[in-house]
């Protein structure tokens, strides 16, 4: 079925498939995650679990794939659609715009890699590096939003440092889980692309390219407005 969709260059069908897959996985796993492993880290005088498990890696991987394989509008439409559908069931919190724009940024990173034709075995380290960079960017951005919204943190450098220190368990898990997910999913896709599977090059019109870059930018602006106003 996937082969036929790719043969027909059916971008919409592939997007629907990815949205369905991402939504189902997120809904199935959200109540079935194991507890934090017994590894603790002390930074800035605060001892906390080293890894706090969540399902970030599912949407992060889907965002990167959306940008890498489909590009254009689907770069942000796919991750936001999954978040919208699953948040109806799971719920979200008050930094929802920061979270959604963070995933749109990850999609944009995937799209930038696509425009540079990095979907090859030779560029796997670059893709992994971009994935790591994207995760760091996401965490810096969303935790900045947490601090800005005043969630128990004072509006000074100490408050900001405390906010990021408290976020470290989530960041470490995001880095570990997303790196593993990229290795297990994207690397085989790239291998198949170079040996058997034909992944079509969807033509992206110039207007679509501009909108692809504009939408995450607008979402970032809206996120800031949502806490500042």
């Amino acid at each position, binding site marked *: 079925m996937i082969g036929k969709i790719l043969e027909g260059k059916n971008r919409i069908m592939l997007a629907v498939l990815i949205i369905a897959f991402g939504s189902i996985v997120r809904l199935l796993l*959200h*109540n079935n*995650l194991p*507890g934090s492993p*017994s*590894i*603790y*880290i*002390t*930074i800035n005088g*605060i*001892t*906390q*679990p*080293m890894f*706090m498990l969540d399902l970030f890696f599912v949407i992060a991987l889907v965002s990167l794939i959306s940008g890498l394989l489909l590009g254009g509008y689907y770069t942000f439409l796919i991750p936001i659609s999954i978040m919208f559908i699953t948040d109806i069931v799971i719920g979200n919190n*008050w930094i929802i715009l920061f979270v959604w724009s963070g995933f749109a940024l990850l999609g944009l990173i995937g799209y930038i890699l696509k425009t540079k034709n990095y979907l*090859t*075995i*030779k560029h*796997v*380290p670059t893709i*992994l590096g971009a994935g790591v960079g994207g995760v760091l960017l996401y965490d810096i951005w969303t935790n900045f939003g947490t601090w800005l*919204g*005043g*969630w*128990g*943190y004072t509006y000074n450098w100490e408050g900001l440092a*405390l906010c990021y220190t*408290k976020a470290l*368990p989530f960041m470490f898990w995001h880095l570990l889980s997303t790196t593993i997910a990229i290795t297990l999913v994207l690397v085989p896709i790239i291998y198949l692309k*170079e040996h058997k599977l034909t992944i079509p090059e969807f033509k992206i019109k110039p207007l679509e390219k501009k909108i692809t870059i504009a939408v995450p930018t607008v979402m970032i602006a809206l996120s800031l407005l949502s806490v500042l106003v």
Partner: protein
Amino acid sequence: MKMNTKEKTIFLLKIFIPIIIVIGLFLGGVNAGIITFEAPNKIVTGKITATIAIDFGDGKNYSKAITLDNSTVFGFLLELEKTGIISVEKTYNEQMGSYEINSITYQGTTYVHGKDYSFWWLFYINGQFATEGADKIYVQNGDLIEWKYESF
């Protein structure tokens, strides 16, 4: 596209060097005591006295020193509930594996967690914001437990 030997070597170095660095940092952290495998809050035997202070966010405050056998922050809150001063509505979150506060009622006013997506119950141990569930953190003698109904 086939890679020559030099390109293959650079490719493998780009993969393995970061892995080695990460493993090295982890082992270094364990060696330096920054990373441990034991929970920081050990259960303390015997009676523990801690002060529980509640800020209801509308100018109302209440505090009381409570003495209990080894217990969690949540246990201290429930002990305060037994005195009849407050009433606590709670549910067990299976995903997080801990109890969550739904509301605390004090002097006839119910303060709902997540009201209008603007008001939330948070707790602090000795001034430090807690990231674990209240039923996961064991209280030490002399601790100050602050429950705050905060708006953001």
